[in-house]
């Protein structure tokens, strides 16, 4: 885009350098979950990762989170190699995975209690703020199973934000929700991201969702899992549901669809 302006290209804060991940499955055969992935992510950039299931999206996220050591290559955050879980990261999974025995308020602060054995007054206050931010102010005392799936996922997002992570990793966070709730939460996520800028890696199956949210989209293909193309989403911000009706939106959507389907036709 406007690479001419020096301020528009900040130093990358995440970089994947020829990262590969090979798994040996139970029958002894090798699965290349991620093949030679190299890319940079800038500070406070919103990156969507799009691709068919099994193309290595979750693997990519888990390597970045320091949960899995890549077979080859290196990932660095702020220039230092990732060799384990780090504090700058918050994770949201496909399922809310709240603890059924804690109310929503305690679920939000659970990571702190789990890690340090206690919760500070400051974290409790922050928990309340986040409850309000995700629209669950009145539900702090409810148990997860008393809330709808969408509300549970909001709570999970709030939980990931509690320690104010610089980097937010989201693995298909909305794909278990119905279409309406999904749109609603996508817009809310945009809102949160605008209010508290973060670097976001957002995995999804949905092309419209990726286009609505992301600055750039990593399109991946399966077997072996490869980063096929990185697409600049040059749709203006702030974005809303109106964005979905713009001609440029359709252009980009069709372009991605062609990419994805051309790979599928190979099989």
């Amino acid at each position: 885009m406007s690479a001419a302006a020096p301020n528009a290209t900040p130093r990358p804060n995440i970089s994947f350098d020829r990262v590969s991940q090979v798994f040996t499955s139970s029958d002894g055969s090798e699965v290349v979950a991620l093949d030679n992935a190299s890319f940079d992510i800038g500070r406070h950039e919103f990156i969507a990762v799009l691709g068919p299931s099994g193309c290595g999206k979750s693997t990519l996220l888990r390597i970045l989170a320091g949960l899995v050591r890549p077979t080859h290559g290196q990932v660095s955050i702020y220039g230092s190699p990732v060799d384990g879980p780090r504090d700058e990261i918050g994770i949201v999974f496909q399922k809310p995975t709240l603890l059924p025995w804690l109310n929503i308020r305690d679920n939000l602060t659970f990571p702190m209690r789990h890690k340090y054995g206690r919760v500070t007054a400051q974290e409790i206050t922050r928990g309340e703020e986040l409850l309000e931010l995700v629209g669950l102010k009145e539900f702090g005392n409810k148990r997860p199973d008393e809330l709808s799936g969408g509300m549970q996922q909001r709570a999970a997002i709030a939980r990931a934000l509690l320690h104010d992570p610089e980097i937010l990793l989201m693995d298909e966070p909305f794909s278990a929700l119905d279409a309406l709730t999904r749109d609603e939460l996508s817009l809310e996520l945009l809102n949160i991201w605008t209010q508290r800028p973060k670097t976001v890696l957002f995995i999804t199956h949905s092309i419209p969702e990726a286009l609505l949210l992301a600055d750039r989209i990593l399109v991946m293909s399966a077997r072996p899992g490869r980063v096929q193309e990185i697409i600049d989403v040059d749709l203006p911000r702030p974005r809303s549901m109106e964005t979905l009706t713009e001609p440029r939106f359709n252009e980009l959507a069709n372009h991605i669809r062609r990419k994805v389907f051309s790979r599928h036709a190979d099989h």
Partner: protein
Amino acid sequence: MSSPTTSAARSSRAMPTIKLKAQADRLAPWLALLVLLLVWEAACRLLKLPSFVLPSPSAILAATQKVGFGAWSEHIFATLRVTLMGYGLSILIGIPLAIALASSRLMSRTLYPLLVIVQSTPIVAVAPIIVVVMGAGDLPRVFITFLIAFFPIVVSCVTGLLATPEELVELSRSLGASKAREYRNIRLPYAIPHLFSALRISITLAVIGAVVAEFVAAEKGLGYFINFSTSMFQVPQAFAALMMLVVISLALFHLIGLLQKAFFPWSLPKAQH
């Protein structure tokens, strides 16, 4: 226009029948029990069955009174003591064992076959050997009870520990939390529903274990008392002891359910909390 009044009238008429149905639901089992007792009593009298073949309910009641409160409470207390000590031991050993099995592949490879062998051994047949080895006293009885009761606790606890959603375990790891915290804060609570269904089964197994142990070696307890009574052809009082065992088993079974409801209400299926 008229619909609100008619619907109100309909619902007020519908209410009593619903209540009646609920009451019938509650009363039905008791009624069935009563009928059974009456048929039993009638059969004993009409067929003139001797009491050592099948004592009538009234004969059992009479025998219960004859034995007296003091003797009964002594026997009941003895059996309850062994049951609860053996049960406690099952929990104390079963849960750490489950953690060991769930957390290490090597442990589960090594220990599982052993556990299955213990479980496949007819404890009733081994009980006399245990008594010979461990001598008189509570120890062999508690150990026999433990052997019969602990297996379901281990198996269910392992199932529960491993049923913890993978994402939560990853969350825990992404926080850099230790394995010990992962087990204490996440996996063990997740195992609670599984654990409690085993605890309910195991408490009734513990009663059986205590009775088996008392058959083999005891001077007190309901198991001992049944053994003693039948050897003296005092079948009515043996039946009385048997019924007390059934009541104790049911009461303990129910108690475990109440404890779960009191301390872990979230672990019950949705309809129950």
